[in-house]
């Protein structure tokens, strides 16, 4: 038996069971508030029961024919996801979206095969700068204060 076939149904089953468990932990409301309607836990449980039935059908389908996975370039895909993590760390340290965005844009350009350093660098500086100015002047969006925005906002 090919276990890989059942990895997705298994994941979905575990997910559904966890949600049912978490739903059962929710408080119940007094009768005078809920009345003849349903408790807050009922709807998610109902959804997950339907999900489990669908997962059963999916497992049956997978046992007949297992679909192809989307092919991907391993390095750019996984490193892009890693860059999301780096982005989170940079924002947390600097407190500034406009420190993190250019760094990630530059690195992403390089990871995705840009051979000319200056092209990636120019893109990483000009794009966030123009978007920042557009949002600041036209849409009047205030961005979180950090290393760079502190200088700009004063």
């Amino acid at each position: 038996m090919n276990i890989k076939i059942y990895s997705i149904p298994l994941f979905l089953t575990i997910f559904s069971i966890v949600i049912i468990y978490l739903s059962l932990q929710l408080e119940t409301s007094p009768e005078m508030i809920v009345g003849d309607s349903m408790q807050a836990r009922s709807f998610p449980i109902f959804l997950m029961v339907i999900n489990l039935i669908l997962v059963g059908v999916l497992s049956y389908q997978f046992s007949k024919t297992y679909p192809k996975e989307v092919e991907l370039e391993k390095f750019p895909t996984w490193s892009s996801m890693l860059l999301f993590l780096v982005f989170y760390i940079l924002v947390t340290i600097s407190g500034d979206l406009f420190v993190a965005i250019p760094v990630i844009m530059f690195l992403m350009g390089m990871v995705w095969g840009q051979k000319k350093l200056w092209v990636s660098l120019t893109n990483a500086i000009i794009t966030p700068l123009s978007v920042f100015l557009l949002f600041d002047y036209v849409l009047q969006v205030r961005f979180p204060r950090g290393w760079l925005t502190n200088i700009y906002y004063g």
Partner: protein
Amino acid sequence: MIEALSAMASVFTDPYLLVLIFATTILGVIIGVLPGLGATTGAALLLPFTLTMEPVQAIAVLSTIYVSATFAGSITAILINTPGTSAAAATTFDGYPLAQKGEAGRALGIAVVSSTIGGVFSVIVLCIAAPLLARVAYEFRPPEYFALTIFGLSMLASISAGGAVKNLIGGIFGVWLSTIGAERVTAIERFMFGNYDLYEGLSFVPVFIGLFAISELLVQSKMVNRVVNAVSLKAVKLPTKEDYKKIWKTIVRSSGIGTFIGILPAEGATVASMIGYSEAKRWSKNKEEFGKGSIEGIAGAEAANNSATGGAMVPTMVLGIPGSGTTAIILVGLMVHGLRPGAYLFTEQVEKVYQIFGSMLLANLMFMAMGLYAARLFARVSLVPISILWPIVFALSVIGAYALSQSLIDVWIALIFGVIGFFARRHGFAVAPIAVGLILGEMVETNLQHSLKMYDGQWWMIFAQPLALFFLVLAFLGLCGPYLYSLIVKRKD
């Protein structure tokens, strides 16, 4: 009627709207020709930019992106055999072979004319059908709305990507996402894990940016080593009299098919173009030309995919049930700007509704001009290296996710849903059902609660309401019909 027509006409005389729709059409065509971006990602990225606009202007921007990007997908489909949007996939079957024969200009001319006629036809149907449907919807009570949303969710089974079961699982996941936050009646906190930023539930905008834009970024990473072979194009040629004689019936048929398919909840331009193409082939006297550069094939696919855009706006605006990922974003745009979709929109905000329809009509005419005079230029945009394009998409996604609530948690939500969307797509699950489920989730739960209160907890009374029963039967047939039919056919055999 006169009021409606004058509201539509006001769009054509408002210089600000004219400039806005013109600029958005250019942007929409650029988005459409860039492989991977498409109408849905484009609308998700542009939604935050519409925040400070008036409601009509904002929806005009989003719907213009919808129609122009849907059309523009055909430019790259014909010139580089890569559909800019999935709706243009059927255009590659005959568009690219015709372009290879040195008739790229003719192929594009037919695509432009067919798309425009299809688009204009569907807007006319939208203007007539939407108010009629609104009159019926005016009588809906919670049981009918509950049944209608169940019908809308059941239609997810037939969305083109993924499979029926996978789409339904995606839809259920989306509905579950709508339960995150404080429950509306009892205020009991569900699945928040102590995070009070989620008290009012997940915001649609960051989730959509994640599902559509960021997940697409990750999916596109497989295109890093893509080599593009572009076909040369001198100028776009309008169809000749002979061409018109050959394709007019196909255009009319596909416009009707596309509009009808668009109106069905959860169906969209991709399904419409495939059916439009296959019907064009079925009715053609020159079936052997199909796949080798048939102009009927191009007209059939293009008229159908663009007419689906107007059709898809009917359930979106009248019933609040989006037909696709893009209409789901337009629906969110309506809500963000205080226009609650539904029957009341057609009684209380009728002028705005017709201005939106007018702007869609204008967008259809504008992309015709762009297609005829600037297709060659736009085709070059598709050659932008992805190592420049997708970092820009990343920046726009992150800033767009932040902009609506000016909260960093929305940025993290967008990134998380980007990764979830990527893994879902990698295993063959489409992301549009998750988005539609998220939107419909609140409607399902709230209307079920109200229905239960109305009938003192007797849930079976929902089945006693004729309209509700009608929608539930439709939902059942939509889900089980194909299986029952194949069973009957097997028995007969």
